[in-house]
């Protein structure tokens, strides 16, 4: 009798790599069908030639891309969308930061209650929340009536960029707050106390200690909100009232109204490229912070 268990055919355990591969297979298939394939299709579509009526031709060419990259309307659209999204991102950060900082310092039941309040808006769709803003911002809305009652002529808060910025900022705030909180792990109140005893005023302590230590959370939140802002569609569509031109609304118009599918595809690819840039910027920022 032998004391050694010899490997038995058919019972050999799989190598760890094989197990990992097998476990990753389902999500890889879903991604390939649900993401990669549509992107490839979009790319191909953006090179298709089409008639003025929108009918697609069988031939391919660079016509659409030349139009997109030379037409001042699309170039303004791209830079404008980036600008508005960046502005919304910064505004969201400024509005969310104090809330996140306060939440980080809360504990127990109070923290849970506040967290639920922060997350609750995410349970309703952006469409519903946008209609909520319409009720507040419209010419007969809450703010306008309140200002009129005080004898002030209310400014237009809807169907312009102001409305879009107000609505998107509020809608993106929960994402920003959660991202900030997830990045606040390094912020120990002892660091602030150390800075204070070393002679730093609360203002200096904030800028020299709190801000650097929360930078990873800020980077994550900004990435998330920028990406969500530049690809947002419902809020700019409804609160912009067709007068605000942003990439996502323009893609919709090109695809559904003008029926210029190659143009819609090309603009979609541009958004994807912008995502790529944002992500690259984020990873670089993170490496510099850490």
């Amino acid at each position, binding site marked *: 009798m032998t004391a050694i268990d010899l490997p038995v055919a058919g019972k050999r355990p799989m190598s760890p790599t094989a197990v990992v591969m097998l476990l990753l297979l389902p999500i890889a298939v879903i991604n390939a069908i649900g993401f990669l394939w549509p992107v490839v299709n979009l790319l191909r579509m953006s090179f298709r030639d089409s008639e003025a009526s929108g009918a697609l031709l069988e031939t391919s060419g660079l016509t659409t891309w030349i139009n997109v990259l030379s037409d001042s309307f699309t170039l303004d659209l791209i830079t404008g969308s980036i600008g508005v999204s960046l502005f919304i991102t910064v505004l969201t950060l400024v509005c969310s930061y104090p809330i996140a900082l306060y939440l980080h310092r809360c504990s127990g039941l109070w923290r849970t209650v506040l967290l639920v309040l922060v997350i609750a808006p995410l349970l309703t769709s952006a469409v519903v929340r946008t209609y909520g803003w319409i009720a507040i911002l419209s010419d007969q809305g809450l703010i306008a009536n309140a200002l009129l009652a005080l004898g002030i002529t209310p400014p237009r808060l809807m169907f312009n960029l102001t409305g879009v910025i107000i609505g998107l900022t509020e809608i993106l705030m929960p994402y920003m707050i959660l991202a900030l909180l997830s990045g606040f792990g390094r912020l120990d109140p002892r660091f602030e*106390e*150390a*800075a*204070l*005893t070393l*002679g730093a005023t609360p203002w*200096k302590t904030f800028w020299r*200690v709190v801000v650097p*230590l929360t930078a990873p959370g800020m980077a994550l939140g900004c990435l998330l909100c920028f990406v969500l802002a530049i690809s947002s569609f419902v809020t700019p569509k409804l609160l912009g009232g067709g007068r605000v031109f942003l990439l996502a609304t323009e893609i919709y118009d090109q695809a559904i109204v003008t029926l210029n599918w190659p143009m819609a595809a090309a603009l979609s690819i541009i958004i994807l490229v912008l995502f790529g840039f944002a992500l690259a910027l984020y990873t670089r920022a993170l490496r510099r912070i850490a």
Partner: protein
Amino acid sequence: MIRTAPEETAGLKQGEGFLSLRGLTRRYGDFVAVDDFNLDVPKGELVAFLGPSGCGKTTSLRMIAGLAPSTSGHIVVNGRDITGVPPYQRDMGLVFQSYALFPHMDIAKNVAFGLEMRKVPKAEAAERVREAIAMVRLTGKEHHRPAQLSGGQQQRVALARALVVRPSILLLDEPLSNLDAKLRDEMRNEIRDIQKRLGITAVFVTHDQMEALTICDKVVVMNHGKLEQMGTPHEIYEHPKTAFVAGFVGRINRLAGKASGGVAEVAGLKVAAPGFNGPVEVMVRPHRVSLSTDGVQADGERHALPGTVTRATFAGDILEYEVEAGGTIMKTEAATRGGEAVLAPGTPVTLSWRPQDTYVYAAS
């Protein structure tokens, strides 16, 4: 509660204490964390706040640093009442238990932070940072991040960072409790050496009585927010004023007895207990108790108590016995000299100790 009026504190003369606490009190609702704390620390002395967790020692330190508000009372440094002064104008160096080194700055920047906040000229600041880092023997580590250093090294950076600004008072909040035993002894001596060399007034908070006795000029023993006793390590250890101090600082044997007419009767012994009446606790430290098998009789020189060995522990440098005597378990310990026999449990013995090693307290 006696409270010192502000005008009295303002007129406090120097020499009474470089750091003075006058009726310092901190209440959280009904809970009194620190109760009417009065203290004078002469310039250049190191005083240890010693007590169990929750005794108010850390709260007191944080009030001195300005990080926690006081409910009433005054903190006076060098004749100046700083009770209402914010922490960044107090000129104190604080070393945290967790070190609290800024993780996003390297060692040199951490140490330079306080100088930068005080707007010290760049060249002078660089020189002082270099000196401070050299003082804690970390030259060459200037551009390391705190996370790259060991606990002991981080502790030394924290010390350098607190001292480089030349604070009027150095505050240390359990600075050694995150270090292992060997490093703790080393750091304790290092902190003491540096403190003496700089002649800086310092407050050292600890729950470790060994640490308190060995590092400081004076020990303040605290319990339940109250000052139990203040004195030199020798006074605290040899003449504990309260049963709490006797029990908290060093090891102790307790015997319950009854006193009347200045004499306490405890387990058949008569112990001098001037001024006591009613139930008392009689205490004696284990290493002051001798154990013999010859049946020593009590005389005027020694108290003696017969008993039976229940446990013997040979710990190399010391030999410990637990002896059933006087209705309780008494501990004894003696340094080993080599060659002595370890008595087996069940051996009848006699415990004896000198009357001056006996402490008597009213039973609580």
